[in-house]
C-alpha cells in the first residue's frame, strides 16, 4: 500500500488533474455481518466482517442464517438477507469528471437498497439485474426478493 500511495503522489505531483482514488479502488465497506456471510473475490472466499473494505467485482454471499449491511463509497446503502448472492458489477463515482454508474447483480435472495449520490447525480445510471428481469432505479428506496430460481 505504501507503494501505491507513493504512486498516487507521483501522479499528483506530475500535474495530473484527475482525482486518484484510494489505493485499492475500494467501492464500499461492510457495516454489519451476521451468520454465514462471505465475500467472494476471484478464487478467494473471505468471511465477511464489519469494517471490511469491498472491491469492484466482489460477490457478497450469505447462507441460510446470513445478513450483510454494506455502504458504498457514494453513500448507497445495501442490505442482503439469507441465501443471497449479490455482485458489485460496476461502480463508477467520479463527480469531478461527471462519471457515474452502478450495476448490481442479484443472483438470488433478498435485497434492500437506498440510493446514494450516483443516483442523485445521474438518475438513469443505476441498475439491478436479477434472474427475472432488470430493475431500472430512479434515486430511491426499494426491496426485492427473488424466488424459485
Amino acid at each position, binding site marked *: *500500500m505504501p507503494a501505491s500511495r507513493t504512486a498516487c503522489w507521483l501522479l*499528483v505531483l506530475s*500535474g495530473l*488533474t484527475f*482525482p*486518484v*482514488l*484510494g*489505493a485499492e479502488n*475500494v467501492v*464500499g*465497506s461492510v*457495516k*454489519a455481518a*451476521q451468520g454465514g456471510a462471505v465475500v467472494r473475490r476471484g478464487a478467494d472466499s473471505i468471511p465477511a466482517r*464489519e*469494517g*471490511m*473494505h469491498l472491491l469492484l467485482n466482489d460477490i457478497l454471499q450469505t447462507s441460510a442464517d446470513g*445478513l*450483510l*449491511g*454494506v*455502504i458504498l*463509497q457514494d*453513500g448507497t*446503502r*445495501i*442490505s*442482503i*438477507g439469507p441465501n443471497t448472492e449479490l455482485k458489485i458489477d460496476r461502480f463508477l463515482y467520479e*463527480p*469531478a*469528471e461527471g462519471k457515474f454508474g452502478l450495476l448490481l447483480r442479484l443472483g438470488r435472495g*433478498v*435485497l*434492500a437498497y*437506498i*440510493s*446514494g449520490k450516483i443516483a442523485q447525480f445521474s438518475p438513469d445510471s443505476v441498475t439491478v439485474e*436479477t*434472474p*427475472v*428481469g*432488470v*430493475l*431500472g*432505479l*430512479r*434515486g*430511491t*428506496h*426499494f*426491496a*426485492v*426478493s*427473488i*424466488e*424459485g*430460481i
Partner: protein
Amino acid sequence: MATKRLRFGWAWLLLLGSGCAPKQAPVPPPAPPAPPPKQSLVVLLPDPEGKPGGISVTNPAGTETLSQPYQAVRVERSDTAPTAPFAMDQAEVRRVFGAVLDGLPAPEVVFTLYFGEGSEALLPESQAQLPAILNAIRERRATAISVIGHTDTTADPQFNYRLGRRRAQGLADILRARGVDSSDLFVESHGDTDLAVQTARGVAERRNRRVEVIVR
C-alpha cells in the same frame, strides 16, 4: 461390475440431490412434481428524504413501472411479464422484508470544514469541528472516510487541484495523528470543479474553500 453399479448409485444420489433418493439400481427418475409457482417480488418504498422515486421492472416479456411507495410487482420468470403494479400492505412488506430493511446501515455523515484564501490552514471555527468528526468515526466504527478538498476559482484549475489536495491531505494527517487508520482514509481533490456556490472564474468565495469529510 459391483463397484461400477455402486458408483452409478452414487451418481443418482447426487443427481437427485435430496435426502429421499431411491436406494435401488438406476431407474429413470420420476418427473419432478410441479413446484408451486414461486414469484419474485419488487416493492418501492418511501424515500427517506421524501423525494419521489421510481423503479422500472423489465424483462423480455414486458415492463412495469412502480411510482408510488408500497407499490409492488411480482414476476414469475424472466420470460413471463411482470404483473400489473399493486398496492402492498405495509405489514406484508415488514413480514417479507423486515430483516433486510432493519439491516440497512445508517446514512453517511458529511462534515464541511473551511479554509482561508489560498491557505491550507483550517479556519478556527472549523478546527473546532474535529472532535465531532472523530466522534462520528468512532461511533460508527467507520472504515471508509473520504476527505475531499475543494477550492474557489481564484487560481487556475491545476493549481486549485493541488491546493484542494493539500487541504484534504492536511486534514487526513490530523485525523491520522488522532488515531484514524490511514488505510481507512480516502483523500481526493475536486479542485474547483465542484463548487458549493457557483461563481465566475477568479472569484474568492469562502464557502467554496472547503474540505468535506464523509464518514460512512
